């Protein structure tokens, strides 16, 4: 009799037969198999009429799920496509289109132990609440100081990666929220080290600039459903407008900006370096570890960026905008934490950065949701996932050139509410590299959303 069991993120098969999915491991004298081939191995052994003692699953007990989830038409279509693809695949829907509900419906239909993997601790809270509201069971959580395994368990990408050796055989369905994260070099191993035969990926921005999203097909499944913002705007998503406000640097800022940028430009000229793409820039950054002159140039450029992005003039415009939208819920986004705290101190509005204690974050988000706090200022930590249904104004004071960041920030504002018009307002410094950064992030907006 063959025996198959889970060993630290892989499977071991012992007995008088092998499998095409495995590899002989002389260290332990067994066949070793990547955990994600669990389903394939069982199917192969069954077809070969080989009996196997399957000691792999160590599942938490099932619980009674009561569902009151009603899916919209496009959500139903997405779920059906996923089921037809043997309960595997990626669903591409804009933020606020209700991806969460599709996943919850899938859990309720399959009635299996499920791990939900999310990018941030805030999202653990949010998913737990949704599970409670929609499925009427407590969800377990791993990460952020919690460690409880339940039929439905929520965890972060970090925890799922670190604890893959312990968690890998405890679920039959794994849901990757914001699945584009999974394709990164480290996280991809989560998909390899878990046995769950059913897999669902959710994202608004499937494609990655590094093309690594192609790796997801094998490990999670192909994209099985895709719908854009335009198709849902109006009926399911709030209509939105986009404005750009340019400000001039103060004379003093202008002077420092010019002098620092010229140090950087002179260095590039001297070394005949042209920076055309993000990859070129990455290459340049790498040389700064060895080359003190290159490092000096990089630091000068960073100082210039800081001046432009965090200009005092922006705060004046910000004050006007806050005045203009006094009745609305406003999210302020910046590039650097320094500016987050400057704004928080200047306007006495709550700030959320990676340094904010988790309890305080929960409290701030709850109060923002209930309307007690009308404004929250944040750098990049709220880019993804967290829902504030009636937030309608997004003030972007700084960001990277990433299109994904733009789409995600916009997504915070798109959740449908009757009569709501979402506004995304960018405040940028005139005649600085910010103009280009802003243009880059809009380049693919139509395609990606």
């Amino acid at each position: 009799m063959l025996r198959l069991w889970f060993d630290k993120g892989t499977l071991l098969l012992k007995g008088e037969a092998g499998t095409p999915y495995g590899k002989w491991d002389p260290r332990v004298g067994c066949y070793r198999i990547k955990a994600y081939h669990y389903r394939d191995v069982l199917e192969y052994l069954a077809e070969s009429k080989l009996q196997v003692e399957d000691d792999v699953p160590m599942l938490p007990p099932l619980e009674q799920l009561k569902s009151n989830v009603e899916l919209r038409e496009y959500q139903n279509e997405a779920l059906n496509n996923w089921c037809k693809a043997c309960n595997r695949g990626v669903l591409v829907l804009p933020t606020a289109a209700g991806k969460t509900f599709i996943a919850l419906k899938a859990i309720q239909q399959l009635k299996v132990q499920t791990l939900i993997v999310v990018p941030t601790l805030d999202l653990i809270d949010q998913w737990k609440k949704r599970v409670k509201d929609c499925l009427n069971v407590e969800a377990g959580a791993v990460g952020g100081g919690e460690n409880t395994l339940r039929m439905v368990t929520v965890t972060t990408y970090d925890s799922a990666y670190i604890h893959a050796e312990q968690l890998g055989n405890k679920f039959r369905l794994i849901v990757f929220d914001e699945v584009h994260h999974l394709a990164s070099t480290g996280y991809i191993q989560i998909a390899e080290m878990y046995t769950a035969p059913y897999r669902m990926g959710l994202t608004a921005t499937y494609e990655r600039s590094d093309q690594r999203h192609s790796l997801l097909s094998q490990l999670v499944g192909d994209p099985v459903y895709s719908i854009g913002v335009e198709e849902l705007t109006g009926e399911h998503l709030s209509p939105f407008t986009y404005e750009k406000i340019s400000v001039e640097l103060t004379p003093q800022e202008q002077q420092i900006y010019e002098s620092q940028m010229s140090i950087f430009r002179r260095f590039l000229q001297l070394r005949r370096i042209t920076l055309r793409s993000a990859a070129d820039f990455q290459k340049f950054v790498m040389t700064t570890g060895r080359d003190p002159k290159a490092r000096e140039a990089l630091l000068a450029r960073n100082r210039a960026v800081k001046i432009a992005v965090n200009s005092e003039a922006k705060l004046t415009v910000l004050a006007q905008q806050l005045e203009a939208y006094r009745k609305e819920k406003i999210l302020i986004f910046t590039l650097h934490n320094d500016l987050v705290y400057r704004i928080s101190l200047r306007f006495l509005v709550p700030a959320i950065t990676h340094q904010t204690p988790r309890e305080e974050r929960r409290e701030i988000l709850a109060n923002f949701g209930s309307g007690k706090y009308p404004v929250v200022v944040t750098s990049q930590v709220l880019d993804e996932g967290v829902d504030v249904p009636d937030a309608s104004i997004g003030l972007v004071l700084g960001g990277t050139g990433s299109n994904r960041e733009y789409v995600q920030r916009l997504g915070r504002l798109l959740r449908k509410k009757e009569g709501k018009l979402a506004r995304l307002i960018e405040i940028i410094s005139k005649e600085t590299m910010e103009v280009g950064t802003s243009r880059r992030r809009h380049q693919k907006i139509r395609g990606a959303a």
Partner: protein
Amino acid sequence: MLPITLLSVWKRKGEIQPRYAKPSSSNDETANILIEAYKTYIGEKKKALKSLVAELEDKGYEYRFVRALSLLLDRKSTFVCQCKVDPVDLRRNIFQATEQFSLPITSETRQKLLESVASKMALKVEDVEKYIYSDLDDELVLEKFLAPSDSELLAEYNLSLTQTLLFNATELSFTSSGNWQYLFHAIKKFGLIYEVYLDNGLWVKIDGPASLFKLTQRYGVGIAKLLPIIVSNSEWTVKAKVLWRFTNEICDFKLESQKHAALLKKPYLPILIYDSSIEEDFAAHFQAVTSGWVLKREPEPVTAGKQVIIPDFSLEKANIKIYLEIVGFWTEEYLLRKIEKLKQVEGKMLLLVNEALACEKLSALAKRPQLDLIYYRDKISLAPILRYLETQFEQVKSKEIKVLEGLPIKFTEPIVGFGEFAARIGVSTEAARAFIVVHPPSGYVVLADTLVSNKKLLQIGDRIRVAICQSGNLPLKEAVRIIEKEGVVDDSANVLVMLGYRIRWRGIDSEKAEVFKDSKNSGEKRFRWPLF
């Protein structure tokens, strides 16, 4: 361990090495500047230390080096938040006040809001602004600092740097002079897999389960954590494969105690405390009886195929070494795995198994000649173990005697110790003694642990006779000294008796005892050996 961005290496022809901070005046100076700064910055904010580091960078100190040293010093520091009230509470009060005051966009409303919060929380207005974010990392204040010496800091830096390089390791092999128990415990704890092989000593190669499929750095962190345990030994060699991600090439990394031990901090490892009181009790009882067996706790690893076993104890006597493993609580699977592993062990292994927890599967063990079992109940009793050891020893002894009987043995020296004779042939002293007692060589007398030629014995007799003639009486002490001076250090009382002398005791004090000739039986006639 350091952030990977602070890793500084050199690379040449496929080899990689951290840029170690060797003791030199400039490195010592950098360490010293920072240590002294931390001492004087007590009471200052963390951001003041950060700008000091930035200043040093501007002055041309290597940025990764000063940042790493500063980071290590942060870990020897206590930073505290100096706010009198809870900053989270303070912020809550401010943000909630915006409801009442509406958003403070003008500086007048802002001031009013701060004043109201200040009075509510019994703070000064300027303190409200000062403390609102006093719990941010940069705002924390240095309260205590445990200053290392310059060289300690550099040694710690070098160890951390090496560990940081090993984050990128895909595998590591090492050999080490000790700490095996620690090492294998850690290997297991960090989810690593090892294989052992012999190459001028025992080598252990480490990677992880998924390493079978592709090169992966997933186990790098676990591998890095092993390093301090390895280098805390006196002798070691480490070889690793490091995946250098910037160029995507595999580099060789090698570290040797002879070359590198002086550079690296030697961490202090606490003594392992054993959870099993059964083992404690057994060791204490065993050592209380005189058995001739030397008990050693956790001896060096015993190889079992590509794996190792570190037995609980080894027992050594003469040429025999027996490993002993106490099996207290077990599951069937555990035991089966153990049996599987033990089958490959070379050498004798005695298992002490708790009878109350035993099952019939254990009988399979008994079929293996190398493996022996003794059952125990609540407590391990020594008697059966000592009996077992004696039997083992007797078996070996009788085999050795047979060997001796087959050899042409001839003695030429005037004095031959049994131990020395046994060592020459390669048998135990006990076997040598037993053989000589049964086959006493002609021309020699047999003492407790020595053979003495008749000629030598007569020489000693002469010396003693002269001594008695010269001084009338001979203290025992003096007689022993004469015998020992002749080279016989064993059984001197017997030598005297054989020579026809007797000892007159005055009380039990040997200082006062004297040697005299038994006048009734004239000495030489009492020689009992065949020669005379």
